[in-house]
């Protein structure tokens, strides 16, 4: 988009419309007359009517233009970047994180820290994982770099707290196992493209 129309500051040459206004009264009588005129012009009742109409619509018809926050919340875009979620594998229920450490490495505010170890099943286990939300700038790099779509941005944007530093542990962010069926596949920042299946070339198998 060209920025020219914004850079043109010569008033009058654009499509601006000048609002016609009455001249400001000079005398005291004139000012009094203006007040009286504006007071009894009937516009007041237009306003009262609009309010009454909306109240009736809201109370009896159920049409409302605002939401009852915090009881109600507006839906947000999947690309919104709020408090992180840790997802599970849908089949096994095991958490997806493999402990590769890429989110820790890429984090530009250095707020992710993880400990890993060799577990009994010969796998890399994430023994501890924290994000300091006092430092996190919600840039989304962690979700983008995650090779397993394990760490993603969720919709929990209410993170007011008494302290500046606020740590979340792995378990706090992980999908509860009983809520696994409600876990939504993430399609925000860092998710696979819709046509990813077509773009993949499969490894040949001889068997």
């Amino acid at each position, binding site marked *: 988009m060209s920025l020219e129309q914004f850079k043109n500051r010569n008033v009058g040459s654009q499509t601006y419309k000048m609002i016609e206004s009455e001249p400001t009264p000079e005398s005291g009588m004139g000012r009094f007359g203006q007040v009286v005129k504006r007071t009894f012009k009937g516009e007041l009742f237009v306003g009262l009517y609009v309010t009454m109409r909306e109240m009736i619509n809201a109370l009896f018809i159920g049409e409302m233009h605002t939401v009852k926050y915090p009881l109600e919340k507006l839906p947000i875009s999947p690309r919104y970047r709020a408090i992180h979620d840790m997802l599970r594998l849908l089949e096994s229920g095991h958490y997806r994180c*493999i*402990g*590769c*450490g*890429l989110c*820790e*490495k890429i984090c530009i505010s250095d707020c992710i*820290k*993880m*400990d*890993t*170890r*060799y577990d009994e099943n*010969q*796998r*890399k*286990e994430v023994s*501890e994982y*924290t994000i300091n939300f006092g430092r996190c700038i919600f840039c989304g790099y962690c979700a983008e770099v995650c*090779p*397993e779509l394990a760490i993603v941005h969720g919709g929990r944007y209410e993170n007011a707290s008494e302290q500046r530093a606020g740590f979340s542990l792995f378990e706090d962010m992980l999908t509860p196992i009983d809520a696994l069926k409600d876990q939504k596949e993430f399609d925000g920042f860092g998710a696979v493209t819709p046509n990813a299946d077509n773009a993949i*070339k499969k*490894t*040949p*198998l*001889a*068997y």
Partner: protein
Amino acid sequence: MTARKSETKMITVTIDGKSCQAELGETILQIARANGIYIPTMCYLTKVEPIASCRMCVVNVEGVDGLILSCQEKATDGAVITTNNEEIFKQRQNIMKLYDVNHPLECGVCDKSGECDLQNKTMEFDVDQQSFTAREQSRPVENWGFISYDPALCIMCEKCVHVCNEVIGDEALAISVGGYNSTIINTKQDQDCSQCGECMAVCPVGALVSTDFKYSSNAWELEKIPASCSHCSAACQMYYEVKEGSIDNPQPKIYRATNNYEFSSLCGAGRFGFDFENREASRDPDAFSRALDAFRKAETISFSGTISNEEALILQKFKEKSGVKLICDEVRGYQRFAEAFSSVTGTTLYHGDLKKLSQSKGVVVLGTRINDDAPMVKYHLTMASKRHRARIAYMHPLEDAAIQNIITQFMKYEVGSEEGVAALLAKTLLEGKAVPDEIRAYLDDLDIGNLSAESNIGEEELDKLKKSLWKKSGFTLVAGADLYGHPQAENIARLLGLIEHYSEFDVMLIPPATNALGVSLICDLDDSATGYTVGYNTTGDYVLSALGDGDLDMPALNQQEGTFSSVDKRVVPTHVALPYHGYVLNDILNALGFKERYTIGYTGKLPREKGFSSVVFDALPDYYDITGEEHRGYLLKSTAVEKDGRLEAVAALPAYDGAVLYQCNEGAQFSAFTHKTEQLKSDSRLKGSAQFATVAKLKEGDSVKFVLQGVAYQRVFTIDTSLKGTVAINPTFDRGLSSASVSYYRFSQPKLEKMDSKDE
């Protein structure tokens, strides 16, 4: 040896249009690397002979059909070589495609990710898909103790096998050949290979990894602190890899120790025994003032050989200022030995070094259980054996099963007869050499028959040794700690001095403690302690200890910066790997009137007349160049001393009949510091043969008590079937502060007291 072949022919080759000068006999790859020309390799490891399994290093030589393996092809004069063109690139790309077939895509968890040769070369040659296929089979992960092997990740470059056979000499790893099913097998898994970890160091992928380190950190998170290993006198190049501990305890922690595996090696103690730091230390002004009082009233300062050159110099300066006595039990014997040795050779230092040793054609090892005392020296023996088919004569009262594969002649002598053995050796090796008349007369006067009978070294054995060295050149005599504590140590030293001075043999005197060489050069040591004694890492009335059990804490050597003098006669730097919160020796001496802000301020003040250079610490180099040349610190200079050594008549050889104990820390244990580490196995049992058990009237599992030089030991006896004879091995590493007070002859006959079960 190189000295004989000094007239090496120089050749000129053209590589990628660049004209390169080289010595005849160098391979194309060596010449290219020396001239900064890149040739990709997967299996090439500078410190072993070319493996030639990867074929990545192919080059084109003008006038030669087909591609040439640059790693093993020696360049000819005038050759014109192309290292890269479209055909070669395709070839290399195909090799990488084959390497990548079925390689598990687990870079996300693999320990090697980020420093992986396969990752790098896959990227370099643009392999982004797998177009071949192979049926994958089940290949379970194997645990070899300190080392884990994942065959699925293995690319069969064979570096590990070559390093295990050619450098370490364990001959534990082998290839199980089977095409795509080939794997590396550990043939000595049950007998416990020496667990040096060299195989996993050289592994270019994540197939061989440390069991302890596995999956605990990514390579890129660790900070590499360049250091020198502080466990023995080899002071090998190494890196401590440091990162904060964990989320709960963010104190920095050493995760692993690595080394510049391309050019140097590290033994198991260095690689797995890295966590000996003094964690608890803090600054307590009261304890500090008590330490100052102790130093003010001290008549003697006693210390261990595990100390940096700088601290040794601080103590020496303190002695010069206040007149205290300096005692270093571990080093005093060595110092006297080295002085007596120099009085015959006329130079302060011995002539042998590790590089010369690895190129020797004939080696005699005398008075040391080399595999346990100095693994790095043993590795160089292995190199001499494998590459130059060196004749290696091992002279010791105890046979060592671990080095049987590299020694060509084992000469068992009686315990205590080292002086006689040295005399016999001198006579044998100096036969036919031009020596002054008085020395010739001395040698001729030796009662060979008697010495031979008493020491049990037969004349035919000496003849065999003599014959095996016939028409060879490049010899080294390695002498070790058994000799330094011997009652006749000084005469032994003079006899070895004769060998160094008048024969073609270069002698190496292995220092018995980490910095025994440095201490022996810097400090003016006294023979016996008197009065109030301050002990530094050893026993005393007031104890400064890096083990954390003394009156004032001191930093361990991975928390200090400074230099060591190595067996290679090199002054090598080490750096601070972990923070230390307490006082250091320099603080105490500063409070007593010295003025040097940091301990390393003394590095440039090390005595020049003893061979040190006045290079400040921060100017010490610490690297290997591309050709493998070592640039760590600087070499000590040998200076001339007066040749006034007088040989004494060989004393009557003492007889050690019955059960004898040999002080020896086996395997990866060296001192109280290695004992403190988490991973290294501490087997502190008294080990002897069945014959020893009979003589000492002990059974497997018996507890025995005995006192050696005032240190009480309580040991469980076990029969080790690899041992023979009536000598048992008694370790000292678990004695804490008294581990370092070993000034005496390593063989001894204490009264063994069997303990009843209720005594325990």
